[in-house]
């Protein structure tokens, strides 16, 4: 990320506040994105290197079909639910911190 450009030492208008806020939110976003990307990268690789394992039958589906055609959707819902919870909590904490800073 870039260096701070024009520092002004007022609470919520300070670069430190903005930088911390963006860093915290971005960290959360990247952590959630990583879970998703790892699954997205891993499935084709498993299909590539372990075709027999992925082709075994589970309830009539092949394992890889069951994962991609059915289980992938709830997996993504869980990630997005966790993200929303944490992200809203983060925002509330930021707002609280900023208000405390202003009343001081």
């Amino acid at each position, binding site marked *: 990320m870039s260096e701070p450009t024009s520092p002004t030492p007022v609470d919520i208008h300070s670069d430190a506040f*903005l930088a911390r806020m963006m860093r915290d939110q971005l960290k959360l976003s990247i952590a959630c994105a990583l879970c998703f990307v790892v699954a997205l990268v891993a499935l084709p690789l498993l299909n590539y290197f372990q075709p027999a394992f992925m082709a075994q*039958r589970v309830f009539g589906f092949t394992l890889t079909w069951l994962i991609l055609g059915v289980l992938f959707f709830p997996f993504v819902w869980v990630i997005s639910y966790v993200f929303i919870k944490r992200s809203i909590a983060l925002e509330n904490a930021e707002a609280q911190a900023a208000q405390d800073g202003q009343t001081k």
Partner: protein
Amino acid sequence: MNALLLAVEASKGIDPWIAICSLATVAITVGMGFWTAGKSKSAGDFFVAGRSVSVGWNASAISGEYLSAASFMGVAGMVMATGYDALWYPVCYACGYLFLLLFIAGPLRRFGAYTIPDFAEGRYDSPVFRKIAVCFVLFIGFFYTMPQMKGAGTTLAYIFPGLPYWAGVVVVGAVITLNVSLGGMKGITLVQAFQYWLKVFAITVPIFVLASLVGHYQQHLAANKTSQEAVASAPAGIERKALPAKAPKDEAWIAPFGKLTTKALDASIIAAKTPEAKAELEANKKPYSLLYTYSLIIALVCGTAGLPHILVRFYTNPDGVAAKRTTMWVMILIGVFYVFPPVYGVIGRSLTPELYDAVGAKGTDKVVLELPTLLAGRDHPLLGSILSGITCAGAFAAFMSTFSGLLVSMSSALAHDIYGRMLKPDASPEQRLKAFKWSALIVGLVAVGLGSQVEALEINFMVGQAFAIAAASYFPLLFMSVWWRGMTMRGAATGMLVGGLSALASITLTSVSDVAVAKAKKITDAAELSAYWADHPLAKTIADGWVAHPLARILCEQPAIWAVPLSILLMIFVSKATASTVPADVRMKMLVLHAPEALGLKQEYIKEHEGLGGH
């Protein structure tokens, strides 16, 4: 109207249930358009539905808008035609929203613009950048409109067999243009939300009834044997018709890296002269398929986060938190939907294999409409008719809702960005409203004109093009603009233009040669064929080039794997080189993008700068 219907029915043998369900969908859509017309008054209502759409309504409306003809009919057809690999389409269509949620939805809403070009100009204080952004809204919009129009034309021709292709394009184009100019964004929000629930109903109910009578998803999947199995392990009682010669074999169909991803290499293998060359190409088959799969995933996931007609809907949320909640509900709503189209594909492979022999609109794309009619032949004639009527209604809802969303986003680009910002910045809200209506009419006419020209192209392929262009232009722009303070206007514009245009160029290259090859295949006479190729030397050179270089073909057909990184890298390098032009108030802009609303920093960009807006 009734007399006319009966006459048409008597002469051509149309199923009355199909006709009634389809007409009812159109009638309800028009009716809701008139009903909401009285409620949409201000310019804000027309452009962003007064920024007051609740999470539930907005999530339904976004889902309704997103599930297009490609989702409703194309995905099922593609799963039936190519098997496992086609599953990546529904999965990435749905899961692409995660990137939108994680990186873009909340901040973009907080910025408080009307359109994406607004954001582009506001973030960089650059009117020039608005013009570039408007061009991409129209590019992507029209690319996405053409397949919707094709869906309309072919479905109507399927329901009323005597009707020409262009008639469906004109009818649907006229209905939606009327609706959009009556109610704008506020009007179509209601219609699209209704259409989402109609589509879910239309895709689930017929398949549950069907599956309870002919066997379930996994039972039909088990009827296809894998390369590990000696015989298929289908449970007793699962009926399966013999596959025609054109259909892919079980082992290839059910396994990854099948026909969809190996098309380019298959053509080269057929053309290879020596056995050694053939063997070498065969060895490349799997690695190339893997590459194709990854490129497809990148295009769909990043493309979803960069579609302007979807992004514009996030501005209708009241605040950033609502935008995030909406995105989560959208993922759930469309995820539930996308489980079902592959079921049609799998059961269709068992029960309607004759579709493999036909091509285009009469081929596997039709499986969703065709499958319910099977029940008619199994002592349930009425049930079969009603169910296929329901799926036809769903198909209508699919291309109507997507087209209305596209029409709003393109009309906004014309009325707000070009008229309101460039041609006549001092226009009154009334004039802007009028401009919106005129723009809707113009865009509607152009869309109908373009739509009537694309009968020969594949629905899902055209949609894929729009996604790849969006992935290489808007996604990098939004992602980098929201998270990197060092971005400059030149960096953003260079990355977006080079990424988007190179993706557009390579895709155009593949489709031009593909259309020429498809035409050549229809010519049986050898002399005529050589004359045809002599007339099209460029297409011949390209087509021969693909056969000689299958890797180049894959990278041009699925450009996302190189175009997205190229775009992002260019943004970084050019921004670093022009670092002195970073907007002076970038800190304030970033604060507006990222600070929670509770801090009271929220400024509606539009109201703040122009005094335009709500009543």
